[in-house]
């Protein structure tokens, strides 16, 4: 008689427990040298619960199925010249920002989870971190494969890896992950697993990928949702990390709270790029950044932090400031890129009348009062042949590395400046959130690789803008500047003219 099939819970227990051993040739503390210095106390690793109960055999089965589906779509996208079917040539710039700014983070996450998986001594989290590490590698590979189709026709993609390590605004996402990966394994898990994956990643993948679907980009929506199907597992890992740490020892609470505060704020700043993509770079818009923030932070985060109150964990510090900033962030970011279009690896433009009306409707408290007049002034300047370029290098926030263009909470006409002194030098910040992070770890953040400082120190190819752009491998006149008049726009217009002729 065949043995009765095991239930899911039994199967999971058999496949994930008792896989490791107490080392004898070397003491355990030598084998796992990084899981104590952060001050986190673990009394019983076996208390780790993975609510998804996914075992490696099923993992491979499901991932293989996801890959088969994804590559069938990519093949068909390429075969059918899907790049010609997107809503507008401007849309492609959002994908440029994604490939240069986000995809390399997937690779960083792959390495980070491989490292955390190696250095956590409990087998449950090691299995989960191993799966996530493999997922993240899959994400970067599928993104590069998908977007390679756009690279055949459009500028701004070819040097994505080189640019990620050098270009001024790409240091914002890059330094975010460098910070997480150079922390201990528990901080990494809280930073990326919890604060980023659980609290914030929905804001990146759900509305933006829905936006890709709305703008006719079948390839991006497919890799996006394929990646996001792994994300649900990552989210449960993130929340499990928090519960596990807080249940293990009361001394863990203040350490975890500090990490949650820090990584919420860091993540909020990085996602400013996504805010701008949603409000300004998608020709057909799904929802505003502010609406997405209300659904995915105020509502979903509200339920989450209410749940975590029982451990004594509170809502991240400055969550109220972040919510207030949702009224301003996308507009202030797009304005920065418009001014520095000559140094950006994608094209910019001023919003059309129709787009400005949409922004007024979505931002009734702020857009018409603070941002519409600025765009209208810049439009007049363009008409007079005086398109505004900012030729000064901006002061950067030492923590988030974003140019200091954000305004005071409650006062949108005054730029926010904060500063701290450390070992005789003064460091500058865009916000209280960024200043607090520096003040907690000044020895780490005083070593930040800040693009503008590096240019002034002569480490970025030379003293002039053309020298620096050459060092970025920027194809000047093609990768940068306005959408109007770009080679991208030219090839798009030529396709559309031909299509119209055929249609008669």
């Amino acid at each position: 008689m065949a043995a009765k099939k095991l239930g899911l819970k039994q199967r999971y227990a058999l496949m994930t427990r008792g896989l490791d051993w107490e080392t004898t040739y070397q003491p355990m503390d030598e084998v796992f040298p990084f899981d104590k210095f952060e001050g986190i106390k673990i009394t019983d690793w076996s208390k780790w619960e993975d609510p998804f109960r996914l075992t490696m055999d099923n993992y491979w089965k499901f991932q293989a199925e996801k890959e088969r589906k994804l590559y069938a779509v990519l093949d068909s996208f390429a075969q059918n010249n899907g790049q010609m079917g997107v809503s507008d040539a401007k849309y492609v710039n959002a994908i440029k920002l994604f490939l240069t700014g986000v995809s390399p983070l997937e690779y960083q996450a792959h390495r980070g989870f491989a490292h955390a998986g190696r250095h956590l001594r409990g087998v449950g989290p090691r299995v989960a971190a191993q799966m996530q590490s493999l997922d993240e590698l899959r994400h970067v590979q599928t993104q590069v494969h998908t977007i390679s189709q756009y690279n055949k026709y459009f500028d701004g993609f070819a040097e994505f890896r080189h640019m990620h390590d050098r270009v001024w605004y790409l240091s914002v996402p890059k330094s975010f992950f460098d910070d997480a990966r150079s922390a201990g394994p528990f901080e990494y898990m809280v930073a990326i697993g919890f604060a980023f994956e659980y609290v914030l990643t929905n804001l990146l993948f759900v509305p933006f990928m829905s936006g890709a679907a709305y703008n006719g980009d079948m390839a991006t929506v497919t890799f996006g949702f394929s990646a996001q199907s792994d994300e649900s597992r990552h989210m449960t890992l993130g929340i499990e990390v928090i519960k596990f740490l807080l249940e293990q020892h009361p001394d863990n609470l203040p350490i975890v709270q500090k990490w949650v505060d820090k990584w919420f704020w860091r993540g909020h700043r990085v996602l400013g790029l996504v805010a701008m993509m949603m409000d300004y770079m998608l020709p057909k818009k799904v929802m505003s950044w502010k609406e997405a923030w209300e659904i995915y932070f105020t509502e979903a985060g509200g339920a989450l932090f209410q749940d975590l109150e029982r451990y004594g964990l509170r809502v991240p510090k400055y969550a109220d400031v972040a919510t207030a900033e949702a009224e301003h962030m996308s507009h202030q970011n797009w304005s920065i890129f418009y001014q520095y279009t000559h140094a950006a690896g994608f094209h910019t433009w001023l919003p059309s009348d129709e787009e400005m009306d949409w922004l007024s409707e979505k931002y009734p408290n702020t857009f018409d009062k603070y941002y519409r007049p600025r765009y209208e002034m810049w439009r007049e300047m363009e008409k007079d042949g005086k398109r505004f370029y900012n030729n000064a290098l901006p002061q950067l926030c030492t923590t988030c590395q974003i140019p200091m263009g954000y305004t005071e909470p409650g006062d949108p006409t005054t730029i926010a400046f904060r500063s701290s002194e450390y070992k005789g030098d003064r460091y500058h910040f865009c916000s209280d959130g960024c200043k607090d992070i520096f003040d907690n770890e000044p020895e780490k953040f005083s070593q930040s690789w800040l693009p503008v400082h590096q240019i002034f120190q002569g480490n970025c190819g030379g003293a002039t803008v053309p020298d620096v752009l050459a060092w970025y491998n920027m194809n000047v006149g093609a990768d940068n500047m306005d959408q109007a008049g770009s080679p991208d726009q030219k090839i798009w217009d030529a396709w559309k003219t031909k299509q119209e002729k055929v249609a008669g």
Partner: protein
Amino acid sequence: MVQIASITFQNTDEARPIIEAVKADNPGLRVMDMPGAVKLDRDDSIVIRRESVEERIGRDWDPQELHLVLVSMAGNVDEDDDTFTLSWSHA
């Protein structure tokens, strides 16, 4: 404040019977249609039953097949051979 449990699926042929099963088994469910995805919200909890999905697709279905069509979710997960539950309550 009421805590909202939520699950988002891809809007595909494979996910639609699951979405239908969730709608049938969860009174008071709210549906948000987005391009390419469907977000299902409900106060406190959402349950997905293997039997309800199997009735609709006419074959055996393993709740772990959810992994193929899931986009996002909110709530604490509890999964066994017959149900997949998202909930904020602590029994």
